[in-house]
């Protein structure tokens, strides 16, 4: 069973440390490129590991996971959009932009969930990694489509050109390329060579994750200043939506894909997490009318910390409960 001591995994404590450092207005600052470097490392690391695992399974076996990922990636932003327009009642363009973030995923949250499972020595399926890579993109397309609808076609020349670029960008953005690319390398490279590379990822992975979360903690706390701009109903959305996505993910993982506790937790995390790397620039280009203060504050300042501190253990407990 889950207990408070599970919270004391170092990765999460480092996140809290970063958050606190920023709250007490420490001058602690990470070099701006450090976070990027750490996340390149983490993405390649998950990709290689995932690829090596996936090479062992039957490709046909992965089709269900791929389909589920597409379903979640196309479905969740639509759910989010309707909640945002009908319940939270914000304007449609901001709704579309925010919805796209929640349909996509956060690799940082995913890796933290893996650290969490590892610390409890819970095993997990390898399919969720491929779902992570796939789920980066579809929500961007949906966000764009929703915005075009909101603009009643948005059909000026500029809009159409941006749309074309956006669809291209959605499938070629850095995280997708890194993740799919290293997954492929993990699957096809000769084992002797991989064995020489993996110590770099195995030895350092959790340490790098801790530093990454330390930085993300600072970044999350920096967003608190914008909570006023976001307003109470959107803040509630920033916590309710991951719960909804998490529940959908739990259902998909447990019933649809038949995963165990670990895999189901990871699918829940995919559903629950919101993108803060690939989607923000895409939405900035696609929907310049939408406010970055809203979507960044929600994904980085509310949902990310919520998932790290509360969400992951919660989805895990739920997955355990389902698996009874």
């Amino acid at each position: 069973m889950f207990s408070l001591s599970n919270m004391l995994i170092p990765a999460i404590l480092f996140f809290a440390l970063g958050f606190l450092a920023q709250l007490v207005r420490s001058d602690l600052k990470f070099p701006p490129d450090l976070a990027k470097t750490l996340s390149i490392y983490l993405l390649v690391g998950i990709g290689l590991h995932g690829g090596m695992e996936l090479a062992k399974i039957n490709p046909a076996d992965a089709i269900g996971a791929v389909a589920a990922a597409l379903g979640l990636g196309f479905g969740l932003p639509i759910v989010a959009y309707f909640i945002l327009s009908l319940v939270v009642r914000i304007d449609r363009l901001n709704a579309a932009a925010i919805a796209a973030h929640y349909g996509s995923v956060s690799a940082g949250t995913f890796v933290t969930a893996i650290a969490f499972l590892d610390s409890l020595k819970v095993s997990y399926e390898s399919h969720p990694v491929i779902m992570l890579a796939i789920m980066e993109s579809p929500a961007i397309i949906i966000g764009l489509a929703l915005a075009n609808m909101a603009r009643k076609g948005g059909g000026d020349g500029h809009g159409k050109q941006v749309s074309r670029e956006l669809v291209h960008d959605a499938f070629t953005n850095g995280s997708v390329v890194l993740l799919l690319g290293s997954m492929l390398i993990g699957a096809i490279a000769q084992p002797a060579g991989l064995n020489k590379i993996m110590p770099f990822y195995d030895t350092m992975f959790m340490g790098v994750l801790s530093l990454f979360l330390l930085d993300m903690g600072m970044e999350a706390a920096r967003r608190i200043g914008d909570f006023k701009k976001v307003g109470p109903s959107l803040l509630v959305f920033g916590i309710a939506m991951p719960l909804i996505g998490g529940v959908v993910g739990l259902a998909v993982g447990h019933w649809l894909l038949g995963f165990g506790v670990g895999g189901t937790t990871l699918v829940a995390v995919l559903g629950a997490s919101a993108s803060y790397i690939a989607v923000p620039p895409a939405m900035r280009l696609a929907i310049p009318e939408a406010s970055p203060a809203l979507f960044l504050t929600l994904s980085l300042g509310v949902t990310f910390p919520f998932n790290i501190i509360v969400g992951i253990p919660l989805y895990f407990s739920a997955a355990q409960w389902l698996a009874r």
Partner: protein
Amino acid sequence: MKPVKRIEIVIEELELANVIGELDRIGVVGYTVVPRATGRGERGVRYETVQGLGNVLMTVACDAFQASQVIEAMRPILKRYGGICLVSDAMWVVHDS
């Protein structure tokens, strides 16, 4: 030395390719870009939380005619995505004179 217009543009990094595209269309070859600028304007504070969402500072020296074209090209971009564009006079120490 010859008199030129000095155009100074602050835009989001994401828009840079777009602006360079406009310069190409107009036929302005030269520009200088300083990346990783931060700033504050009507749309709040901007810094590079996420790749592409920071500001860049672009300087373009060109003649008055080209400058007026660049200015017109910048208007819709500034309206859509924010940023500023300042124009002033300068003397250009030309390479070959």
